[in-house]
């Protein structure tokens, strides 16, 4: 089960990417500052909202509080899909503050954003989730990147708004590690994930290449890869902080990830030409392929762990069946240093842990994170591999055999079994 060639290959790839990321980061450590805005572009922030009564008011307040010339900033709230609560009524209270409030019958975040894209004349378009809060200086930090005409999107650093239980503490660490990676991907011109909760786009890209895909469950991922496929740039302002409310319950987190990962898989199929393409630089040759490899490796490692656990349980049952004390099996763990030798696997594992610690603290330093990270970090180190593998196995299951899933206003029927039925039986 534990195949050494697979382990060595995975260790080599992960060490290589880890070294590459750290080299890239430290090579640019004195250039982490964001470019100054040369000429303030006009900005449209759109907040799509469906049943967001508890958070909509504070999100609008947060958008209004952003430090940016008021004559250059327009804010849309697009209530979509007939909210059952008071989202629309609460939003309308902000009409007098200049917020444009619209109610659409059609559901789906993509529809809401496309509505605003068609209405606005602003140069920069920002989608902001209705449970998201931005720091006041977020636009001043992000928008200088648009000085470069090749830049089509700029991502901030996403952080957790509430860090109450273990699930949220683990996600807090995950977001911080993600902040480091996004900055490195920016430096390697390979950003393939931008936060759907708050990303700035150059509006001319939509004019030229169309708006959001309304049938896509992760229209943000599709848009990111669409920009990459046209070989434009996507950048990241690591110190521009935006806060989102992360799922508290494991079940909600699971379904959020099923949506994200199914979105990734669909987007990967759609933009498969990027993978292994030298035209797309690091993204095509290293970042994309290693991201796919790391998912497979994590699933493999997860299966090995389950297999070993199963073996231990069988050994315990066997020992009991033979009238032996199962605790006897613990005697295999020896406390003599002779039985612990230096191995390349252990060496690389220690190195990987050290590299991930450096990445984490760099992300904390450059995103000015002040959250209490200790318990979250331990939880992340111990549990993340299991969560990550379980989410991916769930997503792969639905991709292969799933019937129909509903996320917000979008229905997903894109499993291989459904596509096969459509192609052959209709």
């Amino acid at each position: 089960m534990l195949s050494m060639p697979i382990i060595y290959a995975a260790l080599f790839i992960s060490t290589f990417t880890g070294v590459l990321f750290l080299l890239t980061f430290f090579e640019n450590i004195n250039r982490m500052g964001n470019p100054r805005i040369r000429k303030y572009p006009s900005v449209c922030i759109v907040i799509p909202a469906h049943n967001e009564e508890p958070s909509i008011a504070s999100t609008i307040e947060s958008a209004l509080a952003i430090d940016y010339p008021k004559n250059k900033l327009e804010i849309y709230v697009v209530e979509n899909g007939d909210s059952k609560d008071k989202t629309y009524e609460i939003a309308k209270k902000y009409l007098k503050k200049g917020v444009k409030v619209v109610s659409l019958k059609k559901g789906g975040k993509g529809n809401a954003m496309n509505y605003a894209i068609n209405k606005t004349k602003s140069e920069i378009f920002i989608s902001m989730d209705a449970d998201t809060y931005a720091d006041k200086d977020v636009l001043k930090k992000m928008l200088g990147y648009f000085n470069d005409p090749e830049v089509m999107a700029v991502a901030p650093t996403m952080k957790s708004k509430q860090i109450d239980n273990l699930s949220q503490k683990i996600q807090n660490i995950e977001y911080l590690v993600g902040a480091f990676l996004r900055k490195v991907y920016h430096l390697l011109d390979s950003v393939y994930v931008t936060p759907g909760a708050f990303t700035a786009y150059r509006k001319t890209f939509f004019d030229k290449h169309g708006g959001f895909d309304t049938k896509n469950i992760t229209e943000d991922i599709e848009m990111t890869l669409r920009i990459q496929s046209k070989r434009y740039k996507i950048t990241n302002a690591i110190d521009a902080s935006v806060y989102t409310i992360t799922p508290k319950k494991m079940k909600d987190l699971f379904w959020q990830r099923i949506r994200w990962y199914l979105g990734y898989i669909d987007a990967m199929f759609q933009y498969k030409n990027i993978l292994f393409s030298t035209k797309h630089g690091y993204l095509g040759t290293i970042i994309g392929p290693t991201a796919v490899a790391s998912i497979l490796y994590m699933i493999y490692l997860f299966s090995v762990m389950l297999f070993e656990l199963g073996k231990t349980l069988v050994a315990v049952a066997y020992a009991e069946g033979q009238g032996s004390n199962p605790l006897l099996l613990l005697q295999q763990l020896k406390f003599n240093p002779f039985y612990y030798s230096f191995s390349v696997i252990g060496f690389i594992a220690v190195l990987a842990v050290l590299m991930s610690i450096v990445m984490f603290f760099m992300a904390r330093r450059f995103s000015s994170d002040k959250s209490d990270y200790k318990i979250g970090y331990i939880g992340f180190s111990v549990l993340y591999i299991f969560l990550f593998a379980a989410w991916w196995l769930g997503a792969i299951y639905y991709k292969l055999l799933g019937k129909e899933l509903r996320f917000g206003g979008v229905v997903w029927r894109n499993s291989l079994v459904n596509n096969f039925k459509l192609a052959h039986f209709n």
Partner: protein
Amino acid sequence: MKQGKSKAIAALAITVLIFIGGFMLGNLSLSSKIGAVQDLQNEIYTESMGFEVLFDLAEDNLCEEENIADINYQLTEFGDKLAYLEKKDADVTALKNQYNSLEIKHFLLISDINEKCGNKYDTILYFYGPTSACKSCLLQGLELSKLKSENLDIMIYSFDYTGDFAPVRNLINTYDVERVPTLVINGERYESFLNGDDLRNLVDSY
């Protein structure tokens, strides 16, 4: 990509160096352990020789000699360390043969002492196989280690049934061992797994 190619090459070079360094340190660590086991083997060999000479010189006094039993404990440690190195894919065939020779020598010495001094020690010969072929061998080994730790006067000798070392094959033929695990407790053969209680009862009944 052009400007960044050198960075990828540098990362690749560092990774290769890390791996080469890791493998070299790993081999170094393993050879130092093989060296330590060789030292242990020499120590056991010298002591064992000493007792043989003592046996020839003063047969009667040997009944009072307590240290002979200690060698069996050292042999157990030697065997455990060899098994660990074998698992690490180290070539320890020669050491394993020497280990088996020492075990057989000690067993013969103890058998002589038992004859002359009235069954002073219990003896167990344990024939095992690889865990892939012998489901219960791992557990049997652990039960025997526990028994030894409870009573140092029980002499336990382990032999790999699949090995081709002539003295071991001879022992296998002498006791008609056809399957694993097989235990020969005080000369009596048992061809199945024996748990702690079974072992203690059999040893006590002798």
